[in-house]
């Protein structure tokens, strides 16, 4: 049984395919979600000087490794998009799975980091700083997981040369997740 291609794949009333426009709207709403969190963090941090001492407990190297991993995974996914546009489905498939691998390394690193922190009593209820830390990183990690799942689904379509345009769409999302981490890293790990 075959299904017709979704209208959003090709229809364009705005100069951008509707599916891609929808992703930009998602990114717009995500800016408000993460932005609201980060703006609240900045306000409270500037007011409470004692937060420096709390931030001193975060491990810069865990954050740095994850920053490098996400930057590199962003490169993989943009190359996957390029391969999909060129019709090289196997190369695109490989690059998508390298990106998923990057997401997995990120999450494993985060799990090890959190285990250490929790075992040292640095839990969510310890202070407002740690509430922000776990909320922001946790919300970000959920976005990483969502991106990995969507990419895995898309990768098998790509292998069949179907819906190749979706590689670009998930790529845009993944780059946004990378940008969020680019700001979380200095806020939570560098500013001590």
């Amino acid at each position, binding site marked *: 049984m075959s299904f017709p291609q979704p209208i959003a794949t090709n229809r364009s009333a705005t100069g951008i395919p509707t599916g891609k426009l929808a992703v*930009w709207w998602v990114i717009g709403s995500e800016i408000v979600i993460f*932005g609201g969190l980060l703006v609240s963090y900045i306000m409270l941090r500037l007011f409470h000087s004692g937060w420096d001492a709390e931030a001193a407990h975060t491990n810069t190297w865990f954050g*740095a490794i994850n920053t490098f991993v996400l*930057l590199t995974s*962003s490169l993989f996914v943009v*190359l996957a998009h390029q391969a999909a546009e060129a019709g090289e489905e196997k190369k695109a498939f490989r690059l998508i799975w390298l990106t998923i691998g990057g997401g997995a390394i990120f999450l494993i690193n985060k799990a090890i980091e959190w285990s250490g922190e929790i075992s040292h009593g640095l839990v969510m209820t310890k202070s407002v700083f740690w509430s922000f830390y776990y909320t922001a990183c946790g919300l970000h990690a959920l976005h990483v997981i969502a991106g990995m799942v969507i990419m895995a689904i898309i990768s098998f379509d790509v292998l069949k040369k179907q819906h190749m345009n979706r590689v670009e769409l998930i790529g845009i999302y993944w*780059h946004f997740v990378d940008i969020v981490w*680019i700001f979380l890293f200095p806020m939570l790990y560098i500013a001590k």
Partner: protein
Amino acid sequence: MNAHAQSSHTSHYVKIWAILTVLFLISVCGPMLGIKLVTLITAFGIAIVKAYLVAAHFMHLNVEKKYVTYLLLAMVIFMVLLFAGTSPDVMTPGGQNWERIPIPSDSGSTH
């Protein structure tokens, strides 16, 4: 896409990634100097540059319809408005008809 154009795009993306990696290393090493201004510039200034590079070159905002950039910037402006609208209350301890009552754990290193 022909092979030459594809190879040129690949080298462009790798070049952007290399620049991002160098900026990332600077943002990690800068704060080690222990100078607050250097930390602010290397950590937050570079974060803005990195975000711009990813948005422009990886998300292709530099070749996307302009209104997408305006849409995203509008959301960022909402965040600035959120800060401007609420920070006078959150960040000032006193004011007209306003008294900030300290909570017991609101001092020292716990907050």
